[in-house]
């Protein structure tokens, strides 16, 4: 919901860049087009007017000469001029009007023109006779008592201008589209370093601590790259230092612990020669050292996982069914119940699966009375192992926390057990490193039900 609202308030950067580009391109081309159209129109119309005028004058002179020579009747003159000028022609000779077209009469001419020409001045005007725009040029011929008019249609010119206008509109639209496209491309280019940064951040969060950004070769972006890499260095140093510390502590505990355990073993072997109180003390000591030893081993294992020194070693094909069955036998667990058909020959990290299941079995032995159901299934993407017990289970509210380190349950048995508190944390870490997922659910019996889901990489046959 939040994401969608953010979108409507602030469209993504790329869309904004594209829209900005489109609008800018549109405005620029519309402005250029409008100016060019205006100039072209003024020029074409002016040109047309001048041409019509000069032709009308020269044709008028010809009419005057013909009439003065008296060799031709006025209607013959009109026809001759119609043929020569390529326009419609009107001639007033005395009070008579002669026209080259039936559809054209003196009544069609604007009165301002006929009045001006009647007054002895040449006149030119555009008018609309209901049949398109026309241009009329009137030339008085006082020497022969006549007036000569040429009427030409401007439809052609208008058509030309309209084609030009449409071309410019289409060109503007195309430019705007190209602008939007360019905006998208540029936006993507602009965002590429950002996406690389975000990819790198995701990789680091996924545990690839030595991931860094390559130099961009762009002085604007270099600070981003540098500060990101600097941050990554700092994080890596810190995480590695902490992991090393945990590992070093466990490591240093190892030698004294070995001595302690061995010495106690020697003493313990002679506990029957001791007074009962001493024997009890040795027994307590022995149990605690045992617990301590397991704790250090678990700590070592988990700190190694944290430090990322253990890479997933899934380079062997493993029969998962046989593996699960074997581990169950070792721990005195039930037979494997198949929930789907195989094949079970899969490319998985055998030792990790073994560690995961061993911890789940130990967990069930410690907090319930051992594993009561062991299921195995798979589909195209994953294989899953189900481990159930019939113990008290874990409340739904606590199930996520059950995988936390040193989390202890709420029941007395959970609180007083001699577990290390790291077993389920180890399970979750190993499963995560294999790219899988482990869930804790409630079994039908009320006990705990662990589902370990692992991505399937079919064995190469």
């Amino acid at each position: 919901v939040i994401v969608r609202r953010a979108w409507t308030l602030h469209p993504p950067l790329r869309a904004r860049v594209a829209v900005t580009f489109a609008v800018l391109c549109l405005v620029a081309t519309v402005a250029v087009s409008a100016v060019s159209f205006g100039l072209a129109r003024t020029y074409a119309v002016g040109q047309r007017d001048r041409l019509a005028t000069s032709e009308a004058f020269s044709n008028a002179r010809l009419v005057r000469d013909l009439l003065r020579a008296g060799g031709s009747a006025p209607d013959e003159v009109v026809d001759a001029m119609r043929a020569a000028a390529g326009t419609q022609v009107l001639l007033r000779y005395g009070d008579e009007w002669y026209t080259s077209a039936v559809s054209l009469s003196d009544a069609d001419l604007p009165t301002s023109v006929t009045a001006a020409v009647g007054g002895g001045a040449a006149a030119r005007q555009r008018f609309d006779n209901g049949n398109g725009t026309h241009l009329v040029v009137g030339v008085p011929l006082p020497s022969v008592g006549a007036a000569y008019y040429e009427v030409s249609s401007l439809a052609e010119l208008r058509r030309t201008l309209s084609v030009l206008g449409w071309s410019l509109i289409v060109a503007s639209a195309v430019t705007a589209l190209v602008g939007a496209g360019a905006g998208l491309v540029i936006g993507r280019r602009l965002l590429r370093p950002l996406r690389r940064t975000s990819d790198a951040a995701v990789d680091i969060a996924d545990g690839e601590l030595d991931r860094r950004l390559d130099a961009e070769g762009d002085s604007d972006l270099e600070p981003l790259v540098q500060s990101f890499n600097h941050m990554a260095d700092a994080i890596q140093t810190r995480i590695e230092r902490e992991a090393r510390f945990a590992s070093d502590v466990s490591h240093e505990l190892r030698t004294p612990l070995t001595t302690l355990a061995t010495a106690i073993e020697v003493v313990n072997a002679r506990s029957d020669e001791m007074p009962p109180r001493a024997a009890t003390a040795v027994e307590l000591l022995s149990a605690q050292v045992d617990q301590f030893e397991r704790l250090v081993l678990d700590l070592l294992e988990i700190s190694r996982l944290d430090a990322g020194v253990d890479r997933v070693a899934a380079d062997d094909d493993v029969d998962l069914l046989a593996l699960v069955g074997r581990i169950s036998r070792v721990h005195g667990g039930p037979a494997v119940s198949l929930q789907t058909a195989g094949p079970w020959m899969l490319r998985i990290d055998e030792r990790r699966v073994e560690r995961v299941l061993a911890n789940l079995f130990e967990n069930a032995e410690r907090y319930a009375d051992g594993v009561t159901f062991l299921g195995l299934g798979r589909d195209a993407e994953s294989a899953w192992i189900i481990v159930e017990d019939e113990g008290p289970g874990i409340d739904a509210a606590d199930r996520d926390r059950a995988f936390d380190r040193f989390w202890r349950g709420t029941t007395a048995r959970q609180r007083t057990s001699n577990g290390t508190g790291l077993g389920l944390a180890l399970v979750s870490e190993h499963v995560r490193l294999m790219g899988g997922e482990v869930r804790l659910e409630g079994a039908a019996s009320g006990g705990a039900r662990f589902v370990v889901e692992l991505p399937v990489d079919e064995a190469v046959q």
Partner: protein
Amino acid sequence: MATRVLIVEDDANVRATLRLLLEEERYDVVEAADGEAGLALFETTLVDLVLVDLKLPGINGFDVVRTLRASSDIPIVVVTAQVDSYDMVGGLEAGADDYVTKPFVPKVLTARLRALLRRSQARNGDTARLRFGDLEIAPREGLVTVDGEPVHLTKTEFLLLCDLAQHPSQVMSRELLLERVWGYDYPGDGRLVDTHIRRLRLKVEADPEHPSLVVTVRGLGYKLNPR
């Protein structure tokens, strides 16, 4: 005469408690604080088994194992610090027969030593000579020849080969081999078998990279191919 164990371990406390533990088990113990001393002691004293910590000052444990292995078939157990690192495989590749991780459970350590010693004292296999192409095994004499040339195998490698050879074409799982060759009666690490198979191949295969005799059966284990 009691079985004698040589301990090469730099930490005096660990050494002292190991001595206590092993003497409880009625072993005779000699100890060395570093690799040089250990090798020198090995030259002058008759011992039945060597326990070497891989992390040693001076020449490290790997080199000690390599040097010992160059001249002797003696059972060698390495003590590795990490449960899960290259150390264990490295130690086995140098020639050790078995390993324990630190901190070790005393009972596990003594059980492994017992298994190794029992094995090296017993005369295993009363079967007649076995022949697979140009490989010939004489279990009774402990002799292996390839193309008539004698091949020198360690005890572990020899037992591994014999076990595979006595069940030709039959797939032997890592667990089964651990049980039969190393005497494990609890789950062990399959890499122990893998490393020894690798070393064995180097000695008996014409092309160890592409084994034709001791072959891997994916996901199941190993078998010996009668050619």
